[in-house]
């Protein structure tokens, strides 16, 4: 998997034939999602046209949860097996970083689309509701994680610290969720739940399911490219160091 993800990283581009195909599929899937969400799917009897925002809002948060889950898994693997790998676990670190970046972007999309939906439906951009509060705390937590990842420090040390933080943040998610849930909730129940009859049916149901698939493909494409960009950044830093050392040696000899 690491070889496949980083296969083009030795060059100067982040694309390969596989990711170009994936990119075309993602673009087509997103275009079809727009048609289904804006044209084919009917307006809701209660929410009206605002329901169309849910075709972005719900898939975005699912993808964000999946991304944060992947960040935690990669972080656990880094701490557990990183030292046994020839790259010192850098592959897991890149995977965790790219997934977290995707998660933060899709959480931001969730918050913005949710605020717009809230303005139309509740009459306000923000309510101190349990789900909203949890999501914004999740967002800030992972922004902090990305800040930790971008610190000027020795890469291995930084990777291990980031991995610890990712795991601790993941442990914190249910605590935050339940605490704000007990505090107050206003948010409607989840539209789709495994093992339960869905709250929506017909074109809306299928559009929502399709949108989740389409957004997941887009997220996968973004994540692979971010992984490769991180790898290229590492190569640039290593090459920069080598050049600087060479120049210094040249100065001493000269």
């Amino acid at each position, binding site marked *: 998997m690491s070889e496949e993800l980083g296969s083009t990283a030795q060059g100067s581009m982040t694309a390969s034939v596989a990711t170009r195909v994936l990119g075309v599929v993602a673009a087509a899937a997103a275009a079809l999602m727009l048609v289904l969400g804006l044209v084919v799917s009917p307006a809701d009897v209660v929410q009206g046209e605002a329901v169309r925002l849910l075709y972005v809002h719900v898939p975005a948060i699912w993808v964000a949860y999946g991304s944060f889950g992947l960040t935690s898994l990669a972080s656990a693997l880094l701490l557990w097996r990183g030292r046994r790998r020839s790259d010192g676990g850098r592959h897991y670190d890149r995977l965790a970083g790219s997934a977290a970046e995707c998660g933060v972007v899709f959480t931001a999309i969730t918050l913005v689309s949710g605020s717009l939906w809230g303005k139309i439906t509740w009459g306000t951009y923000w309510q101190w509701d349990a789900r909203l509060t949890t999501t914004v705390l999740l967002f800030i937590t992972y922004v902090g994680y990305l800040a930790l990842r971008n610190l000027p420090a020795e890469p291995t040390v930084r990777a291990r610290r980031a991995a610890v*933080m990712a795991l601790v943040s993941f442990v914190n998610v249910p605590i935050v969720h*339940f605490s704000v849930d007990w505090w107050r909730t206003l948010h409607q129940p989840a539209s789709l739940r495994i093992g339960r009859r869905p709250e929506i049916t017909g074109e809306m149901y299928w559009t929502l399911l399709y949108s989740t698939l389409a957004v997941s493909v887009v997220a996968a494409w973004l994540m692979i490219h971010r992984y490769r960009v991180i790898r290229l950044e590492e190569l640039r830093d290593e090459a920069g160091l080598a050049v600087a050392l060479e120049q210094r040696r040249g100065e001493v000899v000269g």
Partner: protein
Amino acid sequence: MAAGSWGTVVWRDALLVAGKDLRIELRARVTITQVAPLGVLILVVFAFAFNANAVLLAQGAAGLYWVAVMFGAVLVIQRAFDVESDDGNQDALRLSGFHPGSIFLGKAMALAVQLLVLQTVLWVGLVVFFDVGVADWPLLGCAGLAGTSTIAVCGTLYGALAAGVSVRDTLLPLLLLPVLAPALLAGTRAFEAATGVTTDAGWNWTGLLFVMTAVYTVAGLAAFGPLVEDG
């Protein structure tokens, strides 16, 4: 390492680390001369912000108290790890042979003691400035202890994460405060019940604080090894 069960050794070493941190604090007196006055200042500034509305301040007193505790805690935590960064103390601690779990527990205990001092001063401020009374002393005491222990263990873990980096002063609050948000909620609700502002289930919120302490103690014991090794 002296003979004794693993647990005994860990606790003995933890007490040594806590004693060292508290001795440093006792000599510098930063908590009592700088952090505690700052906490009281936060209470006063909030009173200005709310136009000294006595009713509003009494209702929000519990929340203001925990906000002041958390901002004070950030400063205390930063200092607890700054003293390790100076003169290679981090390396000395690593070479001391202490189990990483001992260092974690010791630093958390020292932080807890300092936070209790801070909270005592803030409580006096709350009584004097906001005229807060007590309806349930046992709940108040337990919630205060539970909140202190939660902030101490979380703070130790995140303090170690941010330690030794150039931007730690700004990074630590960004990492720590979202994590402490449930503790702020729980502490506020429990204190509101203890001071008779609400009839909320204060003991349930106190229970949540103890659960958080347990979860972060386990996480800290597991994670402190890699953090201390990397320094």
